[in-house]
């Protein structure tokens, strides 16, 4: 189904008069809107996260990615430049790269052996001149006209971004200064992978986009900290948004790091003041950035998030896998300079998040509960007025849904839903 504009929907769509504090449930269940998103958002004027730069560290490295539902390959060529193109042979449309990651000098489609260099340019065609003078491609066949479809690519702070829109400004201006600063804070260091996991969420991708921006639910749905009487010392925090409101940051600060003798000796801080934890090493941490911020979750439109909580660094990417299905990837990271003790702390803190996260595993099912709860209610709307109806950043409080409204304001704009 190809839909060029919102006007092409079979059932016309108008945003409710209440604006972005009212979100129609139809947005999570209409296959035409989902198809339109593929065009307007993922293949439109956004920077999509493709992979980590360390996924394509060496010349010849390649890594599969997806932009919306479109399969993409990211490569690093012999000169060190990073490229991305649609993983679709220019001949018959088969996948060119089959392995998730690897290293190769040329990429060859298995179907008819058309081969491409690491820039995605067609360089070889089997039997181009036929066999014994018979068959072969027409004389006017021009390999330059048959390359793999390229994306615009930029590497920013260890993240590889791609866009189908070659008019995109630099990633830094797409993010805006505040967002860019926090991405650098989290990731601008020599990174090392600690592990990848993924989770299948049975809901539309936008429900996770809302969820990751939802600072209101954090202490209500996720009760691990309160159950274990963990004094987080970090209730002071706020919400920042980019000027265009579709990216956000939620952060928390702590006044001081608790130092008790046992930990001071090891140069390690215990993040909890006192708790009922039987295995308190879960929260062993060190003051890594020395700016007093203990917890940051940042979202980047359309489907990327980054968290840096205690010392757990993680890039989360939620890929639409259909109208009602989303694959949430968790790329856990450390740095090249981590000591074994620091790596251990990052790994143990990994228990807090992810598919089995002590703090946040509920997010695996809560969005599905919305997807199921709203079945048959496509004409109804959700009510997103915590913290007001406007889009003003909330620097004093996280008891707000302003960044969810910010997401929808950006979504309306790019989708043309007026």
């Amino acid at each position, binding site marked *: 189904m190809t839909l060029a504009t919102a006007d092409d929907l079979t059932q016309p769509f108008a945003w409710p008069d209440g604006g972005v504090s009212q979100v129609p449930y139809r947005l999570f269940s209409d296959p035409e809107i989902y198809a339109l998103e593929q065009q307007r958002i993922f293949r439109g004027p956004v920077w999509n996260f493709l992979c980590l730069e360390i996924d394509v560290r060496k010349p010849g490295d390649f890594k599969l990615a997806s932009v919306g539902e479109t399969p993409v390959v990211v490569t690093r060529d012999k000169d060190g430049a990073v490229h991305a193109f649609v993983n679709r042979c220019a001949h018959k449309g088969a996948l060119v790269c089959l392995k998730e990651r690897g290293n190769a000098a040329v990429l060859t489609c298995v179907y008819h052996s058309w081969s491409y260099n690491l820039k995605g340019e067609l360089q070889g065609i089997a039997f181009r001149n036929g066999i014994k003078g018979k068959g072969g491609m027409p004389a006017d066949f021009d390999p330059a006209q048959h390359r793999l479809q390229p994306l615009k690519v930029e590497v920013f702070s260890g993240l590889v971004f791609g866009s189908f829109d070659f008019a995109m400004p630099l990633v830094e201006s797409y993010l805006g200064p505040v967002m860019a600063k926090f991405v650098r804070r989290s990731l601008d260091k020599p990174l090392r992978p600690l592990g990848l996991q*993924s989770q299948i969420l049975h809901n539309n991708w936008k429900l996770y986009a809302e969820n990751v921006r939802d600072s209101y639910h954090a202490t209500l749905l996720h009760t*691990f900290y309160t159950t274990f009487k963990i004094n987080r010392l970090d209730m002071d925090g706020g919400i920042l948004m980019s000027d265009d409101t579709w990216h956000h940051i939620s952060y928390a600060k702590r006044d001081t790091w608790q130092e008790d003798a046992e930990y001071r000796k090891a140069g390690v801080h215990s993040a909890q003041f006192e708790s009922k934890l039987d*295995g308190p090493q879960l929260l062993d941490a060190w003051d890594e950035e020395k700016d007093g911020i203990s917890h940051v979750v940042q979202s980047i439109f359309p489907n990327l998030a980054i968290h840096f909580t205690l010392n757990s660094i993680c890039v989360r990417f939620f890929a639409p896998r259909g109208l009602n299905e989303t694959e949430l990837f968790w790329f856990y990271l450390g740095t090249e300079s981590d000591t074994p003790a620091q790596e251990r702390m990052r790994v143990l803190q990994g228990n807090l998040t992810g*598919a089995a996260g*002590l703090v946040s595993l509920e997010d695996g099912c809560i969005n599905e509960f919305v997807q199921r709860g709203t079945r048959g209610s496509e004409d109804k709307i959700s009510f997103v007025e915590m913290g007001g109806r406007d889009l003003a950043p909330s620097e004093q409080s996280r008891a707000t849904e302003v960044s969810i409204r910010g997401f929808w304001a950006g979504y309306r704009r790019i989708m043309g839903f007026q």
Partner: protein
Amino acid sequence: MSDSGEVDDLALRTRVEDLLLDYAHAIDDGDMQAWPGFFTEDGLYKIQSRENYEAGLPMGVMFCEGAGMMRDRVLALETANIFEPHTYSHVLGRPRLRLEADGTIRARSNFLVTRTMQEGRMDVFAAGKYLDRIAPQPDGGLKFAERLVVLESRRIDILLVFPL
């Protein structure tokens, strides 16, 4: 014990197999309180995808260092965590055993776990292998000093709250 480290003591094999079965049955029966007791006090428990395991990456989907962290997991899932009620059913393969010089036993076995939701939907939730190091205890019993659960797939459907 033969020279190769193969366990040819059938009585010992039976005790190891009973440990593996009792562990799975406790989880399948919902007896989460019993779970940490299958480990030594400093025992390790990690669930990891095959992809991460083969790449030598340290992160686990679930990673407990010591039975204290396991008891915290149990308390969390019984009192803090929110999820739809569901049960597991483990199907275990016969273990391959090897006696180490320090008296512990290395065991490798395959498993398949179905998950049944309260409304009846049943799926293959996990499949993979257990890589265990089992330590004989002073009282004659056996406990896991280490249990590494290697999942064939990196994908977890919805969430993982009960240990495997």
